[in-house]
């Protein structure tokens, strides 16, 4: 990890002060850390990956929007700019507190990311900021820029779009492009479901830090599984935590591009928590139905899945012919 420090910020439900520092370039990351053996424990610190902008206080104004309490990972870039941000009159920052926040499980909503106050946004950068649901555009279209010389012609038009320069979000952007990138640039938006972004948290057993994935850029289980495989392969190489145990997380997708995660041949299975709070095996229901009920994902060790009673379904899946609706 180069220059990345985990600084949990945020207060508990009792309303302790939020603190944060500001980065002009919005390179802040929030990663998820969770003990893999008890995902349901709501007392754990849980952070969400996404382009989370730091919560920012402006004492001069009474205005203050209520934000979710997230912890943040700062990159090296934060430190010089945070110094200048502190110096500037339009912003204020304080050293991050070390209190842990309650789990903020965003999965009941289809939004993710923290929100910022207007002033902090205006102070931080002169460009628009990826605040949830802003700008107020219903249309999650991708307008192809034939005439624009700048490169990201397939930039995902997404409220939580990954504009950060960090490698983590580059992976996300890469995977988002990959899933649509099999086609001609021009046609990429054709494959895209016309749904605004739907970020859900993903945790993998044995990896302390979880991620978030935007389900709306996928239209099938295969692409989702591929994305997850890419995501967690990067995690295991880029971040070393005690939890990894040197396990082989690598091969989640078989040689024929068919996801082992879905067919049960990997050491891991992909499960999701649905809106009723039950953990289900991914892949049983039509994609659209899955989208409407999924709250979060977990890549579970097969052994544990068996123990949790997902095993019968697992065996069934191994036996039956799979045909996935797109």
């Amino acid at each position: 990890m180069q220059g990345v420090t985990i600084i949990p910020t945020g207060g508990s439900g009792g309303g302790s002060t939020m603190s944060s520092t500001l980065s002009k370039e919005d390179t802040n990351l929030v990663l998820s850390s969770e003990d893999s053996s008890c995902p349901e424990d709501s007392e754990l610190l849980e952070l969400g990956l996404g382009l989370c902008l730091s919560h920012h206080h402006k004492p001069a104004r009474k205005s203050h929007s209520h934000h979710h309490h997230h912890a943040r990972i700062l990159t090296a870039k934060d430190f010089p700019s945070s110094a200048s941000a502190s110096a500037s009159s339009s912003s204020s920052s304080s050293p991050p507190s070390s209190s842990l926040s309650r789990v903020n499980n965003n999965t009941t909503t289809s939004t993710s990311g923290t929100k910022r106050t207007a002033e902090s946004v205006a102070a931080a950068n002169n460009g628009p900021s990826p605040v949830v649901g802003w700008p107020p555009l219903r249309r999650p279209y991708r307008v192809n820029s034939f005439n624009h010389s700048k490169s990201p012609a397939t930039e995902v038009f997404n409220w939580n779009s990954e504009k950060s320069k960090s490698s983590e979000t580059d992976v996300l952007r890469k995977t988002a492009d990959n899933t649509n990138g099999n086609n001609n640039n021009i046609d990429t938006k054709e494959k895209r479901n016309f749904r605004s972004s739907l970020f859900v948290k993903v945790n993998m057993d044995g990896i302390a830090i979880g991620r978030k994935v935007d389900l709306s850029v996928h239209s099938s289980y295969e692409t989702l599984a591929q994305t997850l495989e890419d995501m967690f392969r990067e995690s295991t190489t880029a971040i070393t935590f005690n939890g990894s145990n040197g396990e082989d997380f690598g091969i989640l997708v078989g040689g024929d591009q068919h996801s082992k995660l879905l067919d049960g041949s990997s050491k891991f299975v992909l499960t999701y928590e649905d809106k009723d709070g039950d953990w289900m095996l991914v892949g049983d229901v039509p994609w659209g139905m899955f989208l409407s009920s999924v709250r979060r994902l977990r890549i579970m060790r097969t052994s544990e899945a068996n123990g949790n009673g997902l095993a019968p379904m697992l065996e069934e899946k191994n036996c039956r012919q799979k045909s996935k609706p797109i």
Partner: protein
Amino acid sequence: MECCNKRRMMKESPESNFMNRRGSSCFPDEVLERVIGMLKSRKDRSSVSLVCKEWYNAERWSRRNVFIGNCYSVSPEILTRRFPNIRSVTLKGKPRFSDFNLVPANWGADIHFWLVVFAKKYPFLEELRLKRMTVTDESLKFLARSFPNFKAISLQNCDGFSTDGLAAIAADCKNLTELDIQENVIDDKNDNWLTCFPESFTSLEVLNFSILHNDVNFDALEKLVTRCKSLKTLKLNKSITLEQLQRLLFRAPQLCELGTGSFSQELTTQQYSELESAFSNCKNLNTLSGLWVVTPQYLPVLYPACANLTFLNFSYAPLDSDDIAKLLVHCANIRRLWVVDTIEDKGLEAVGTHCPLLEELRVFPADPFAEGDARGVTDSGFIAVSQGCRNLHYVLYFCRHMTNAAVATVVQNCPDFTHFRLCIMNPGQPDYRTSEPMDEAFGAVVKTCSKLQRLAISGLLTDLTFEYIGKYAKNLETLSVAFAGSSDWGMQCVLEGCPKLRKLEIRDCPFGNAALLSGLEKYESMRSLWMSDCKVTMNGCRLLAKEMPRLNVEVIKEDGSDDSQAERVYVYRSVAGPRRDAPSFVLTL
């Protein structure tokens, strides 16, 4: 007028037997119903129904269309009890901010139970128009089975269904004239739903499947278009190529509204001229949209069809200023124009020059999150349009920054704005020349545009903006606010000052309980209030709920957040009482 004679009020049908009437000095009921039946305006009908009991009954028996702006404000039982003869229902569901991800999935607004009641009470239902409702395939199948006279379905910003539901409609609605699917979240499963229209089916007049992203069965489509001679509106999806478009236009030169498919295929000279002549044969075309993926060199094929165009929707076509200018030369009759900001200020100058009859302009951003030297449209483009298009009354303008002076100039040029929606994309952005707040801009709007009905504000704004709105915007019905204001006073000004306010939607503003409670008496005269990420607390909401029992005060709670804050509040009047279908994260206080 003596209209309160005792007479039988409950009738089985509006064509009641004349012999059943007792003498009176009023018009016979049938005549009264006929007369009142001619009223189309909702407001007129509302007024009429308040005159006296007889008029109330005449109105309710003669009403054929009903519009419900908030599906939770009334129940299907109450509706069907009052209006026995409805043929067309329009329902709106979720709060508008659900379009921007501020309302969680599974919030509600499911059409199904309405349909179940309608199947019993309105078996002759013909039209259903839904906006922001959840519609499942099961509901669509139920609809197709339950209403033999069903003619028109329009789904806008809905979710929950797939092409299977469309297939059911196609197969079973023998009298279908309209299938209009706009901007929905739809699971596009296969391309065969179009084949479900039977060979004998010829009544279609409106077909809009532009948001589907998979291929459709072109053969089935072509046959359908060929046999439906009354087809007036055809909006295709991106899978349709130029060559296929030409074939369809050849079959349906009578079209009035066309949404093209992809406008970008390699065409031979022959194909190009065929396409051009196909367009020139469409003498009745008044609306053009689509153009997913445009190759600008092919735009000239449209020129012959442009002269009669009144609505040009290029909101998915990122043209540059030259392309749009060359096209607009031919579009002198345009009234409504939707474009992408890739046309930049120069493109807007062309609009001002060539489209003097323009009434509505919407400019969408190609890339809202572009950093650095992002292009797009600015204040000078805005002014240029206002100089050339004096009839402008509706604007939706996305830009990166604006000046107070420019907005003042625009409204001076065009004082008749009824809808003014300015979105400065960076929250809290001040006037970029003076660094002042944008208060004076919106002050100018409300002072000058006395007919203003809808306003959306943005940029750095203090309470002064709201003082202006409360003081001057006497016709304002809808107000959208984000990242604005300094204190509770702002919201109070609006609640106290705008007599016609119906919808107020606020996000990320420093308005708290005092502001919320200042509108106690107001909310019953409004359709709804939305406040998210403001400073309202649960206690404030509880107080509101307690004081105003006829309002539904709902808080959308997220796990793990502060229990005392009310992050998302939705308040609306209702005669149906609290929701019976609220999910666990919606608390009704």
